[in-house]
């Protein structure tokens, strides 16, 4: 691989409570993040295992370029069998843990087993002196912010953390894994698919990574790598910097496109789009402070907002479009400030804001409480921490609360709640939700093209899934929008091998193939490649006429490999 540190990996056995290191296999040298996680799960995890049992494998895999000076490249993938979907899952997060692991030379952490005593809590320490599993009962039940405060008393300020909140400890299917951002706040989450519950099932409350003053990783073709990274950064900064104000500012146009779901997706537009518009958040910076920042060191996009309360104190980060939609409009909640409170509560408890917002909306839709009851929604989130029956059902996600309430309008694919981007106006995105091994996940392959002819859906979905799989394996953030040519050039200069764009496309396809194979092994069939009935039968938009009516053969075609074409290599990742 690159010069300097030899690549290593960490194996953690939570039954024996041991952590060991070994050389990273040369055959995996070009695999990172999502693709590495898929390979390890394919090879080392029985797809039929109980997701919360000792047989599940939790993978923490930084992207190939994490820890280097490539801009916006330090993201980490969390992988495992999902307790939410029953299939394979990769959830990707920013923050600093991915870069810190790579600076120490660690390409991946593989966690197996389960402690004999489920009431015990443990931490995993990773630093220049080695790796250790340590007792951490004193952290039991701590919410994420209090936990990180305590951890910073115990570990150097240079450390970064991955952690779970009470939701993960309770092994709820909507639980996330938090990563500390560059200011040490547990604000970035590998949120989707309940991987926090997998970490919780292994008794692992946190991973502390301290790279101290270690420098970035040294590329094989040093001078050219630095020159390319500099040129790439300069070009980005001279360009339009489209994500400068974050994702929340897209609310008004998403609303116009009928992809700003309202009241459990019974409408595609919300009358509250103006009060949920991210523009309001940006306006608040003036009087309250907060602003835009980079969630991880070295990010040049800086799309992440820091939101303050009326008194100018930090409240949460980042308040994203997805959260404003699912915990806001979809619950009939009109104020972005209430959504900010809910976002903070989810980050504290360690919950996916998409799944949780969808679950609360289903609860409201089933008559459990009024749409728009923001205080009620906050109360329910606190109930999750208390472990009440209702709290647990909400924390277990959309399908769980739908079952508990006997309610049929449960908008999911493969058991996972739909994100904001709606498959009825955006049908090619719907094809992604049906065919992605991840279930309904916009980061798996988002296509915002309402004018696209149906004949193009399958190829567009497949190409977008490939572009995003390549990106999520590299360590780049999707908001940098790298294409396969960019990634190939970075890999070549980093490794000293001639890595071609065709190889990147091949690895992305292999990643999807590994994931589909895992799901097949878990018992999924073509019959699972569909959306919930409510999305097919109930429309949004004018006269509720936009329904998900894509024929099964077009959906199936997205999983048959198309001959790669020029456009594939130039397609930008988009999440």
């Amino acid at each position: 691989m690159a010069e300097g540190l030899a690549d290593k990996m960490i194996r953690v056995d939570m039954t024996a409570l041991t952590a060991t290191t070994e050389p990273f296999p040369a055959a995996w040298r070009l695999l990172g993040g999502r693709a590495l996680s898929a390979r390890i799960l394919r090879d080392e995890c029985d797809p039929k295992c109980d997701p919360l049992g000792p047989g599940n494998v939790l993978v923490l895999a930084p992207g190939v370029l994490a820890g280097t000076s490539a801009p916006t490249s330090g993201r980490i993938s969390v992988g495992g069998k999902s307790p939410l979907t029953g299939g394979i899952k990769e959830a990707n997060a920013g923050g600093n843990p991915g870069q810190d692991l790579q600076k120490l030379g660690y390409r991946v952490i593989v966690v197996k087993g389960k402690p004999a005593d489920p009431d015990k809590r443990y931490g995993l320490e990773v630093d220049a002196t080695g790796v250790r599993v340590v007792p951490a009962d004193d952290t039991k039940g701590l919410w994420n912010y209090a936990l990180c405060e305590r951890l910073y008393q115990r570990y150097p300020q240079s450390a970064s953390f991955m952690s779970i909140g009470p939701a993960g400890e309770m092994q709820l299917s909507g639980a996330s894994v938090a990563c500390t951002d560059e200011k040490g706040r547990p604000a970035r989450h590998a949120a989707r698919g309940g991987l926090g519950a997998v970490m919780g099932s292994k008794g692992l409350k946190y991973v502390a990574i301290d790279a101290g003053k270690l420098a970035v990783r040294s590329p094989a073709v040093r001078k050219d790598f630095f020159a390319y990274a500099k040129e790439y950064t300069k070009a980005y900064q001279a360009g339009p910097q489209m994500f400068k104000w974050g994702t929340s500012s897209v609310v008004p146009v998403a609303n116009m496109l009928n992809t700003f779901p309202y009241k459990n997706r019974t409408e595609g537009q919300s009358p509250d789009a103006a009060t949920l518009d991210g523009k309001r958040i940006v306006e608040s910076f003036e009087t309250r402070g907060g602003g835009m920042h980079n969630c991880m060191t070295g990010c040049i996009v800086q799309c992440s907002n820091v939101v303050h309360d009326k008194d100018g104190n930090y409240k949460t980060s980042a308040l994203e479009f997805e959260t404003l939609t699912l915990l806001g409009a979809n619950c009939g909640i009109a104020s972005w400030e209430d959504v900010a409170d809910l976002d903070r509560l989810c980050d504290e408890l360690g919950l996916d804001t998409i799944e949780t917002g969808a679950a609360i909306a289903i609860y409201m839709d089933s008559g459990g409480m009024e749409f728009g009851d923001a205080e009620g929604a906050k109360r329910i989130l606190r109930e999750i921490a208390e472990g009440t029956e209702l709290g647990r059902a909400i924390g277990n996600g959309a399908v769980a609360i739908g079952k508990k309430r006997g309610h049929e309008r449960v908008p999911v694919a493969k058991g996972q709640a739909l994100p904001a981007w709606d498959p009825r106006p955006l049908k090619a995105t719907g094809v992604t939700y049906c065919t992605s091994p991840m279930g309904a996940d916009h980061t798996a392959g988002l296509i915002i093209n309402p004018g696209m002819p149906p004949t193009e859906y399958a190829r567009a979905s497949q190409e977008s899934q490939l572009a995003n799989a390549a990106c999520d394996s590299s360590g780049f953030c999707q908001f940098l929008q790298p294409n396969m040519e960019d990634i190939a050039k970075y890999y070549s200069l980093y490794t000293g091998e001639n890595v071609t764009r065709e190889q990147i496309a091949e690895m992305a396809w292999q990643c999807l193939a590994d994931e589909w194979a895992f799901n097949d092994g878990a018992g999924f069939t073509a019959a699972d490649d569909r959306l919930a009935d409510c999305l097919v039968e109930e429309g949004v938009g004018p006269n509720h006429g936009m329904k998900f009516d894509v024929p099964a053969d077009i959906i199936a075609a997205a999983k048959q490999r198309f001959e790669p074409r020029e456009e594939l290599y130039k397609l930008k990742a988009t999440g």
Partner: protein
Amino acid sequence: MPTLVIPPPYRGPTQGRDRIEVAGRSVRECLAAADALHPGLLAMIVDAGGALHRFNRLFRNGDPLQGDVLAAPLADGDELELLSAIAGG
């Protein structure tokens, strides 16, 4: 006439068309003409106060427009490209 290049997210009002010719001597006039042909397009480009949405950018013949972009002049044959960062989160 100037040509307006439409990014994928905004091709709903244009029924999938990615380029349209529009009469006008400024960006404002051309966008108004485009909206007359394809109602709903303008609201996706500018907000209620008439300012460009934060996630949109306009380019004239490949060069980014800055300042009062809507007042920028356009001539016959000019290409006005709209870029959008509507995504994610």
